[in-house]
């Protein structure tokens, strides 16, 4: 299951300190990692904290001391960590965290949507969205490498149940080869009495601005680094991660833009539409932060229409992928109509027919008439 793929990623990455708190649908991660730490499959210290807030706080302390750290959470737990997500990126502490996409309460929901992680998009974390369990495992290992190189934390994100609890065959790379790919974490400056520094003290307007400028400048290097790291990984393990996954986009008239597991569902939808003679394609975005503006713009430039499908909403605005895609083409666009759809909130099923419905809507309109088209709302 996806939760095990996440745990194996953390194990193969030789996480040294893990601090986590159980939350459905993440629990198999804390369970499996507890087992691995107990039987020494993984030489790590697992701090079994009393909250997600403390989970992240412990990870930050451990990371500052020079240890590779991992945690995992979901929804309410991620929201509780919010303050410390800023602390991680602001403190340049490359924690890697799994987040299982789960809808925010109330009402209580344990099912998937992306509002939990996308609400954290401005906290300075790299965000990877995965579509299958192999990708989950491969992404964790690569996330450590990317994060530690640039000192920016990473979130590896997977859908509740459709990934977290779904069994798939996953190739588990050999430890020796992973070690070769991912050397130990050796930050230049750590919290140690041998070389005392004060970290994160009162920072006046004289200095704060530049610290944030540097974070953004390094965030701008992430995309190229993910590509480079992905190629190294591909050479050793035969699988390329990359920033996006294109499916029949080259000659497509209509391109869906998707993320997470609905990106796989969209491919089935596209194939069905193609059989009917509709030239559809799917662009699945794997990295939301930093947002791959150039890549997206290049892929969609030949299309006649674009349909962005969001499993999330920014209340009072639109779907969040839709916002970003529009901002990617703004000032560049030769006027491709971009439609925004919201579907699947709170774990409502997204099926190939969802994409058929979207295609039908888009084909009937010359250009968008509203900013949000709701798919599947019961009347």
């Amino acid at each position, binding site marked *: 299951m996806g939760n095990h793929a996440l745990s194996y990623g953390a194990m193969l990455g030789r996480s040294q300190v893990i601090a986590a708190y159980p939350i459905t649908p993440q629990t198999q991660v804390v369970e499996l990692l507890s087992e691995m730490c107990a039987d020494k499959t993984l030489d790590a210290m697992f*701090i079994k904290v009393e909250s997600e807030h403390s989970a992240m706080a412990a990870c930050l*302390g451990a990371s500052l001391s020079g240890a590779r750290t991992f945690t995992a959470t979901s929804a309410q737990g991620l929201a509780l960590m919010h*303050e410390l997500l800023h602390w991680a990126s602001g403190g340049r502490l490359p924690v890697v965290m799994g987040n299982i996409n789960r809808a925010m309460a109330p009402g209580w929901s344990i099912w998937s949507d992306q509002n939990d992680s996308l609400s954290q998009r401005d906290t300075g974390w790299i965000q990877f969205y995965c579509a299958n369990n192999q990708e989950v495992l491969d992404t964790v290992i690569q996330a450590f490498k990317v994060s530690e190189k640039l000192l920016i934390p990473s979130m590896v994100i997977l859908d509740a149940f459709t990934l977290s609890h779904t069994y798939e065959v996953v190739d588990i790379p050999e430890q020796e080869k992973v070690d070769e790919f991912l050397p130990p974490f050796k930050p230049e400056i*750590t919290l*140690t009495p041998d070389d005392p520094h004060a970290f994160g003290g009162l920072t006046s307007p004289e200095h704060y601005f530049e610290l944030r400028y540097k974070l953004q400048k390094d965030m701008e290097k992430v995309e190229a680094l993910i590509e480079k790291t992905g190629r190294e990984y591909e050479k050793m393990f035969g699988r390329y991660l990359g920033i996006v996954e294109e499916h029949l986009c080259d000659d497509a008239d209509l391109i869906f833009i998707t993320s997470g597991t609905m990106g796989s569902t969209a491919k089935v939808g596209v194939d069905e539409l193609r059989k009917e003679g509709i030239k559809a394609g799917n662009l699945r975005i794997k990295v939301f932060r930093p947002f791959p503006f150039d890549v997206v713009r290049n892929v969609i430039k030949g299309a006649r229409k674009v349909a962005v499908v969001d499993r999330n909403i920014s209340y009072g605005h639109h779907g969040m992928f839709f916002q970003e895609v529009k901002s990617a083409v703004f000032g560049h666009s030769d006027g491709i109509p971009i439609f925004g759809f919201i579907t699947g909130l709170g774990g409502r099923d997204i099926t190939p027919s969802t994409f058929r419905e979207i295609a039908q809507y888009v084909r009937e309109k010359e250009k968008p008439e509203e900013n949000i088209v709701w798919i599947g709302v019961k009347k």
Partner: protein
Amino acid sequence: MRLSLPEEELMNSGHMACQGCGATLAMRYVLKALGQKVALCIPACCWSVIDGPFPYSSLDVPIYHCAFETAAVSASGVKAGLEMVGDTETTVVAWAGDGGTFDIGIQALSGVAERNDDILYVCYDNEAYMNTGTQRSSATPYGAWTTTTPVKHFKNRPKKDMEAIMAAHRIPYIATASVGYPEDLFKKVKKAKDIQGTRFLHIYAPCPSGWKSRPEDTIKLARLVVQNAIFPLYEIEWGEKYTLNIKIKEKKPINDYLRIQGRFRHLKKEEVAFIQEEVDKKWERLLANVNGNQ
């Protein structure tokens, strides 16, 4: 004259404390006892300012300025991290004020204590949110004025009994100390340093600006508060074994202590009498614990 504390200083001049600051003395004495093999986790509190702004520091030991409510668990994380990179010697200290301990940090502290994580937790207690300008905390004593407990509505609840809460966690070591008794404080830090597991040290640290007391009265207050049994100095081992460190033959009247602090100036006779009653009751309870008749 023989020095009763080591001469070596790990706290330097140039720090940003107010005159007569008890918290500063607390840091100075604690570092003298711990030596240089220390890592500090300091959440939002006076000491996050006292140390000095980025890129300066007035301490010769490393500091992680951590989030307000995370002192204890940040220290646990640091300890785990250091161990995993091969450093098992460094004493990891969470250094928080009373707000960061009694209020916003109590959840993380309780978690750390329950797990018995190997850290030294020091709370320097100036009995209110002093860094933000004297707002009441749950460490503020009955009767005190603060900016959020104005004279007309002074604090009408007792100070939270943090030692009892920590004792309920059955951790190896709990101690109270006062900057008015540096040798006792020094001895306790030395003792705590060599104990494994969660150690909790509660240091009484007068705050002239918040208490409306004279800077030159800091030591006097820090001694009187022990002698009148408002803040007795004792240890608790494994939540059970109580030891009284500064014996009191006859408790000094609390009025000598209250009247030199502006924060208590509004108190009427009957309120002072009530405080005295509460102090007496608490003192009897402590003696019962010390004598093993719990």
